[in-house]
């Protein structure tokens, strides 16, 4: 089967029931998405298919139609996504294992809505478990990133008009 992951094309030969997560990790060597539960209960494996957040552990690779983006495709240490910058600014991670999935869930939320309410953040993020208990920092980072995205998306001209 053919897959497009982080804008690169791959051809893999696996059984049709094999979840996308294990194709990414064991066949393609893309290790950012993590295995946590295997039943879409923890969100550690969250990736985007066509921009939508998906639990890769429970999504057969053969059913993927559309480009896949993993945390590696979102940003890199030397080219960080706004959310990753916010994660670093707020020093969110502890063990860090769930954070790829957290960031991917947050990225899908903010791509659709750069001014989410607390309730909307709750809804988007409650599928991602964190056993270290970093939730309050995740919330703060999502809000910071949303604010940064809003100021990026507003042209400077409009901003000066707004304050005039």
């Amino acid at each position, binding site marked *: 089967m053919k897959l497009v992951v982080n804008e690169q094309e791959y051809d893999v030969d*696996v*059984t049709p029931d*094999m*979840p996308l997560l*294990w194709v990414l*990790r*064991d*066949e393609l*060597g893309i*290790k*950012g*998405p*993590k*295995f*946590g*539960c*295997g*039943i879409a*209960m*923890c969100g*550690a494996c969250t990736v985007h298919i066509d921009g939508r957040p998906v639990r890769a552990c429970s999504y057969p690779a053969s059913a993927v139609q559309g480009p896949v983006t*993993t*945390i*590696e495709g979102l*940003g*890199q*240490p030397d080219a*960080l996504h706004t959310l*990753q910058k916010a*994660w*670093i600014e707020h*020093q*969110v*991670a*502890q*063990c*860090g*294992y*769930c*954070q*790829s999935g957290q*960031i991917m869930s947050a990225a899908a939320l903010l791509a659709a809505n750069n001014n989410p309410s607390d309730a909307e*953040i*709750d*809804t988007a*993020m*409650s599928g*991602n*478990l*964190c*056993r*270290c*208990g*970093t*939730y*309050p*920092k*995740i*919330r703060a980072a999502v809000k910071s990133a949303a604010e940064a995205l809003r100021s990026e998306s507003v042209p400077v001209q409009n901003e000066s008009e707004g304050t005039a």
Partner: protein
Amino acid sequence: MSTLGKITRRTFLVGSVAIAGGVAFGYWKYKQPIDNPLEADLDDSATALTPYVIIDQQGVSIIAPRAEMGQGVHTTLAALVAEELEVSLDAIKVLHGPASNAYFNAAVLEEGIPFAATDVSRTAEMVRGFTKVPAKFLGLQITGGSSSIPDAFYKMRTAGAAAREVLLQAASAQLNVPTSQLSANDGTILASDGRSVAYTDLAVTAANIEPPKEPVLKSRSQWKLLGKSMPRVDMVAKSTGTAEFSIDVELPDMLYASVRMNPRLGAPMTSFDASKAEAMPGVKRIFQVNNGVAAVATNTWYAFKAVNAVQCNWANASYSNDTNGLLAAVQDSLSPDHQDSQFRDDGDVEQALQSGEIIEAEYQVPYLAHAAMEPLNATAWLRDGKLDIWAGNQLPTQALKEGAAITGLDEENIRVHTTLMGGGFGRRAEMDFVIQAIHIAKEFEGTPVKTTWTREEDTSHDFYRPMAVARFKAKLANNTIDTCDLHLAAPSVAESQMGRLGVPVAGPDIMIVQAAWDQPYSIQNYRVTGYRTPKAFPVSSWRSVGGSQNGFFHESMMDEIAHAGGLDPLEMRLQLINHDVSRKVLESVAEQSNWGRALPDGHGLGLAFVLSFGVPTAQVIEVAAVDDTIKLIEAWAAVDVGVALDPRNVKAQVMGGMNFGLAAAMMGEITVKDGEVQQRNFHNYPSMRFNQAPDIEVQVLENGDQVRGIGEPGVPPAAPALGNAIFAATGKRIRELPFSKHVRFS
């Protein structure tokens, strides 16, 4: 992977012989330096004793030989060295380093002695000193017990200072100026004449200079890094998916395995039929390992599917078949013939309880799983008479021993690569998953094999936080607590855990009464008795160990007594507390939470205070109750760590510890049926979710007399603070965990 394997001729090590405390007791061997664990990787030019600093042409690396499982220990340990070495944290590499007795943890046994952390008497200090001796001979390179920072505080600063002195002398020789005209700053030695030389260019000269044994350490006012919030060294990697956990280890031509052990824990497998599984895609081989089966395949998914398709016949459990039977054993052990300890017996409890109105209650808590986000896994590679093990683990020296026992190789031919951990919480101090991985790799000599557990295997094959039961009787007089008699029964973690390490443990298990017997209250008649439940179901250390249940027991009891007497729970504690550092912690949390304020209808505030691992910790939680549904609104915590080496990280650990404790208190429960753990995954072993987590404000105080670790102390007060808040909001006293048996959480 670690760069330690690639150290070149130009590399040298700067060591230090510093060993903290405990050397004055005549144990001459205790003073003897341990062989440098890095020497196998070095050539003739390398000289060192206790190595924490490596400088080569590429730069400066610091060895932080404790497990990074989220607590930020790599950053703080590296900062201890970097502070004295005069390098910035972003200019260095931090490595865990190899498994070695040289990195033994001198502080880890301190919590196990019958002297309260508040006891600074000569005897207590002497016994504390003695605990460092067995710690060295056991070669315990262990991460746990919130001991990494107390252990390293002197040792690693000294290592950094010794390195700095050597570099100054090397620069003196190279630039031909006296050291008095040189200074160290930001990875460079500067001469007063304006010349400078980078540390990396001093490596060759420095290799021949003996490090000073007792270099002068900076005073606190000279610190540039310590005492300030530092960006964690692992933060960028953990925010970009590039951090390498053991599950991410990838080696040439690697194979992938998964296992299924007898769900009746510890009992043997009687037979198995792998014929169906062997025919499945990608399967290489299926065979027995320990008390179960392993499937080895070409990827993890094929291994999962195959191992689940094996038909296994399991022998029966050696312990009681169900939760009720296990609970009955704990309850039955709460009797004089099972008494294990009575470290506190103030006044005359028996006499006092003869008269007056007695308040009494019984409490219980369930078994708990660790449920770290990264399921257990390890990789092993046996080839050419050498064994390499990659594992996120809290006890690498034990991994070394297990590797030697299984393969027959000498320990010098075995390397343990300790990776970052996707959570540990005590689970990764157990060796079962490492042992399996070595056995499996032995079957495929020459090929690296990664063994990954399913979440189901991980949840149902844990070594659990023990089930425990408490009974108390108390009496009020003169508007305060007059008598308090607390009885605590639980299986022994030390007996179960140390038994698996082959270390005999004599005497009482202080963990049964931890964080209850040693609380800083002056109560007229005050007794805490521990009872040991006979060994049965496997138990182990779970973040804060005995504190995880005893904080709940002791602090729910205090709240019950206060309410029975119409006393304010805060005022009552302040009146009884005999430890100034603890008093200030209570006062701080009261101020932050505005204790005593008028609350909206249905809201309640709960307070708990626990001194554990030497850290007084007070927490207040505000809840709102609508019918039987509880919402956690906000939480406050105050701690005293003596010296806050990294205040933001201390706060993060208290926040995380509190949430870890709350998750368990709200909904954590392991039950047993037919000898098998019934919980399999996060659907029936749930944890706190994003929308349930309150904001937590943490205050960090520094009145304590010494630096303390903070990985665990945030946990014990969480459950009682929540229980007391639920009582305040609803009038309902819940005496068993999890609370979800009686209320719902939104």
